[in-house]
């Protein structure tokens, strides 16, 4: 079997084995099927939720919050990160702030976000943006700092101006690190949005999980959990594809 097929088989084997084990334990009632319903028993629930309870609407609104927050956080994050990497005064000035705020669990600033941006959509989008901003900035900065100084010498020797140096060395050189940051940020964004929707939303995938848990509709809760996992996986896949187009030289 070729390496590629082995990889594919192993990739699929992990989740399938887990689901099988879960199914088996639940069907034989080794674990309580009321709290641990078998995966196959979740199908009808999922279909019902899509048909009658607008589950797609919940997914859509969570995705929108993540996406909008992601863009609002990433764009300035990359710009500040590049500035921090290129200019030491900016780096020294912002570093203590960035590392301190980076370490705060982002859900802890939800009350502040609501005070600042209201209880509507804006606070939910902004909390995603804020929580990934520092992550993106710090990884972009380390990407710039990791660029071999020889590349700067080569560019300068071949006549690059400061601006050309930025466009042709700093930016492409830090792209791999920017993508690594974005990959981590996606995970962050999902955690934060689910947490936010637990506490302060009336729609969204996090709301579905928490609401159904509170009224002990365990199957519905599980459907919400699985959908969350699938969303994370799907978003990573999309990011992989984008990366392959934007950073084609990265050895894969």
């Amino acid at each position, binding site marked *: 079997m070729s390496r590629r097929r082995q990889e594919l088989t192993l990739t699929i084997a992990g989740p399938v084995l887990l689901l099988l084990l879960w199914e088996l334990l639940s069907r034989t009632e080794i674990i309580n099927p009321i709290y641990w319903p078998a995966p196959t028993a979740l199908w009808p629930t999922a279909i019902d939720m899509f048909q009658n309870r607008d589950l797609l609407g919940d997914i859509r609104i969570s995705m929108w919050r993540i996406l909008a927050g992601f863009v609002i956080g990433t764009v300035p994050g990359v710009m500040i990160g590049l500035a921090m990497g290129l200019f030491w005064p900016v780096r020294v000035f912002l570093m203590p702030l960035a590392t301190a705020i980076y370490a705060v669990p982002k859900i802890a600033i939800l009350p502040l976000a609501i005070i600042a941006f209201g209880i509507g959509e804006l606070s939910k989008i902004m909390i995603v943006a804020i929580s990934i901003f520092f992550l993106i900035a710090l990884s972009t900065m380390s990407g710039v700092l990791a660029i*071999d100084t*020889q*590349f700067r*010498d*080569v*560019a*300068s*020797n*071949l*006549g*690059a*101006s400061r601006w*050309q140096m930025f466009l*042709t*060395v700093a930016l*492409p*050189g830090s*792209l791999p690190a920017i993508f690594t940051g974005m990959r981590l940020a996606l995970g962050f964004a999902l955690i934060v949005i689910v947490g936010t929707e637990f506490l302060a939303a009336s729609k969204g995938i996090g709301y579905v999980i928490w609401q159904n848990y509170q009224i002990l509709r365990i199957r519905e809760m599980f459907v919400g959990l699985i959908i969350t996992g699938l969303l994370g996986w799907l978003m990573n896949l999309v990011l992989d594809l984008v990366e392959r187009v934007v*950073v*084609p*030289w990265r*050895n894969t």
Partner: protein
Amino acid sequence: MSRTYANNQAETKANPIAGACVVARNITKVFSSPGGVITACKDVNLSAAPGEFVVIVGPSGCGKSTLLRMMAGLDSPTSGTLQVDSPNGKRPTNSMVFHGRTLFPWLSLRSNVAYGMQMHGKSRRARLDRADELLDLVGLGDFRNAWPHQVSEGMRQRTSLARALAIDPQLLLMDEPFGALDEQTRYILQEELLRIWDNTGKTVIFVTHSIEEALLLGDRIVVMTARPGTIADDIVVPFPRPRSLTTIRSHAEFGPLFDRIWSRLRDEVERGGAFR
């Protein structure tokens, strides 16, 4: 227009005004770091006539690379004067083939070669055409769209050479360009370099560890001492051109010259060993 070789034979060059003239007088370069002050080179006097091929040999850490960087304008001397003059009175151009892996990993071989021309504002069409020509010249025409990580070290080094040639510099600075290559690849690249130099008449300053390489390539060989780097010897190489390893090895002067350079270097390498 003619050029005078060391052994007094004159030969017509394809491009008589292609080479810059370099004069370094009493160059001293001092680096200060938290660990103390390091004198990289001290009172260096060095010149290269237009179209001349000058090779610098010396032990590790003798300031050879620092000297090249100063000629390239990437560093400036602490004291002394360094003058690079263009034969046509305009601003002199130089480009450097760096030591190590310095192709931009984010550009294809072709775009790497075209990079300098892009910085100089040449049109896309013109620079890509020229890049393809140069890649053909160094035997990499079929690899123009490859990424640097996909090709061998030898191919990367040829691409670096093509990239340096692309802006048609009057002064070509080469910092141990073939040091990391296997022997066969090195022979081939040495031949290619000599052919290109012979056709273009550029001034070349070439740094190497290898005495044999110095004897094969240079019109003149400058031997440097260990840190602080100073000039220990300046030798005119009498071998006729075109040269090959076989012809220079059988030349009567080869053995004596090799010994002369090695005896200078030997003490320096042993002395310098304490630093590294």
